């Protein structure tokens, strides 16, 4: 088990290295000189050159990459061109809203989607099943920001249940924090619900065809117990897998949702940094998101041991 974890952690290193090289090259081999942007329109050629030298942008690319990667390994993400602070500090300031939003979204999605999927599989082909499948196609198709404005308009403006925009820190009290976060999390969870419900339905449907389900029914177990303890328990591995894969979807959605609801998180930071050509910040945030994605999927792989005792690492 521990050797497996160690091996998997080691296996993420080449992936992250490839990500680092890709991100680095992507940002350097494209038009738009950050030194010129920082210097402003009135700057002379020498001033721009001086800024470029101070940022180390005049060195050869492999040297720049080596310096950046070396600093990264020591936990130094560099300093932001635009915000004039350490990138690590910037991320630390912005990470709470994003983590809170993502956690609440996953929570809502799992709590809502799994029962839906189980019921749809149980009543396969019935009206509930059809309705859920219809909803899931719709959930994949309605863009996050369209849904966001629709919900703001109905729930916030017409009904007045939730604030329209903004974010409250957890330190300012739990209720205001939650109150501001619920609508964004619901918005973001819809596509996730669609995805997980679909896979849950398919996995439970497959499990329901097995012999042990017939045995369980034959020995007179209540239907609910058959569904949860026998069918759902055996469908857990694909469900866990899709929750992991969906993290990529979630991260993309976070960027958009934070922008619509004016939440000062990492997603907003990414868009702002990209528009300002703030290379160190963009690099760090993308690496962080990619690392989170790889890590969550490692955790999902490990969770198989819990869900399926036959699996040993």
């Amino acid at each position, binding site marked *: 088990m521990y050797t497996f974890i160690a091996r998997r952690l080691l296996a993420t290193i*080449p*992936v*992250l*290295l*490839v*990500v680092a*090289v*890709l*991100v680095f090259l*992507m*940002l350097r081999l*494209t*038009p*738009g000189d950050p030194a010129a942007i920082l210097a402003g329109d009135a700057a002379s050629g020498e001033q721009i050159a001086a800024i470029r030298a101070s940022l180390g942008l005049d060195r050869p690319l492999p040297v720049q990459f080596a310096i950046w990667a070396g600093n990264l390994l020591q936990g130094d993400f560099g300093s932001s061109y635009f915000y004039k602070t350490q990138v690590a500090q910037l991320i630390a300031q912005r990470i709470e809203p994003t983590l809170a939003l993502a956690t609440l979204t996953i929570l809502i999605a799992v709590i809502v989607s799994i029962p839906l999927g189980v019921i749809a599989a149980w009543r396969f082909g019935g009206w509930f099943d059809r309705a859920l499948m219809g909803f899931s*196609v*719709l959930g*994949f*198709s*309605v*863009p*996050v*920001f*369209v849904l966001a*404005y*629709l919900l*703001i*308009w109905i729930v916030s*403006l017409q009904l007045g249940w939730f604030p*329209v925009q903004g974010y409250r820190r957890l330190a300012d009290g739990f209720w205001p924090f939650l109150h501001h976060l619920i609508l964004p999390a619901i918005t973001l969870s819809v596509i996730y619900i669609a995805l997980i419900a*679909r*896979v849950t339905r*398919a996995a439970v449907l497959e499990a329901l065809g097995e012999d042990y389900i017939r045995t369980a029914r034959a020995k007179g177990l209540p239907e609910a117990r058959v569904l949860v303890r026998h069918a759902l328990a055996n469908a857990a591995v694909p469900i866990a897998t899709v929750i992991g894969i969906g993290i*990529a979807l979630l*991260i*993309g959605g976070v*960027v*958009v949702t934070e*922008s*619509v609801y004016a939440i000062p998180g990492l997603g907003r930071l*990414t*868009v702002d940094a*990209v*528009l300002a*050509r703030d290379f160190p910040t*963009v690099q760090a945030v*993308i690496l962080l*998101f*990619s690392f989170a*994605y*790889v890590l969550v999927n490692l955790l999902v792989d490990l969770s198989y041991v819990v869900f399926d005792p036959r699996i040993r690492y």
Partner: protein
Amino acid sequence: MDLQALSVESANIARRESAWQRVRRNWSVRIGGAAIALLLLVALAAPWLGTVDPTLFDAASRDLRPGQSGEIMTLDGELLKHEFLMGSDSFGRDIHSRVMYGTRVSLLVGIATALLALAFGIVLGLSSGYLRWLDGPLMRVMDGLMAIPAILLAIVLVAMWRASVLTVVLAIAITEIPRVTRLVRSLVLSIREEPYVEAAISLGTPTWRIMFGHILPNCVAPLLVQGTYICAAAILVEAILSFLGVGLPPDIPTWGNIMAEGRVQFMAYPHNLFFPGVFLALTVLAVNILGDGLRDTLDPKMAKRV
């Protein structure tokens, strides 16, 4: 002797439906296909659908409600009476015209991205599945690309290049290529174990002919399905890019940037967001429904999984 009994012709052989017949009878394909055909028609006929030049604006016709009439000045200085079916935005531009013309960008980006991603994915996947020395390095690069969340990657690429239809298509295609490559690679790895490929190899068929003559034709169905999903995803991502302000500039109307401009006064004038949003959602829905229909009819193995 009764020859009739030996006659093969008289036997009643149940004719199997061809794949194309199955596709045509599928209701998802019919509905999705019809909706997309209608949208294509809208895109082509945009100038004749009661629209004006989508870049025209008139200060006297700002913030009109849907259905109100007003005036709009053409580039020649001529004042036109115009009915603003979907209202106007804060610059006095006709939202109806912008939404109709926006159909062009969305469909163009969706279809072009799907074709581009499929083309690259096929070449890379075939190479990876057939040239073993290339497989390892190529797949590591693809793993790296897949670990970067697609929307982030597209945002960074488009923002770094100058936004145009070409760069948007290219950026979104790059995020989709790894998935296509993996699909083609896995298909190649399974198909090349089939007896008919072995037979072709033993007959001395050159590798390129096996690839394009035997293996690729058997990938068509899953790739067609994948292509429609890429198209839907690309339309969504393009709208998100435009909405976040990194996509196409406002002089090219897209559903995303119409909404981006409407967000400031969303509370007073929700129609700025409503109409492009509905078009966007319905378009993606139509493409997804078509994809589901194609998957159910062409790719029964995949249909069983989800």
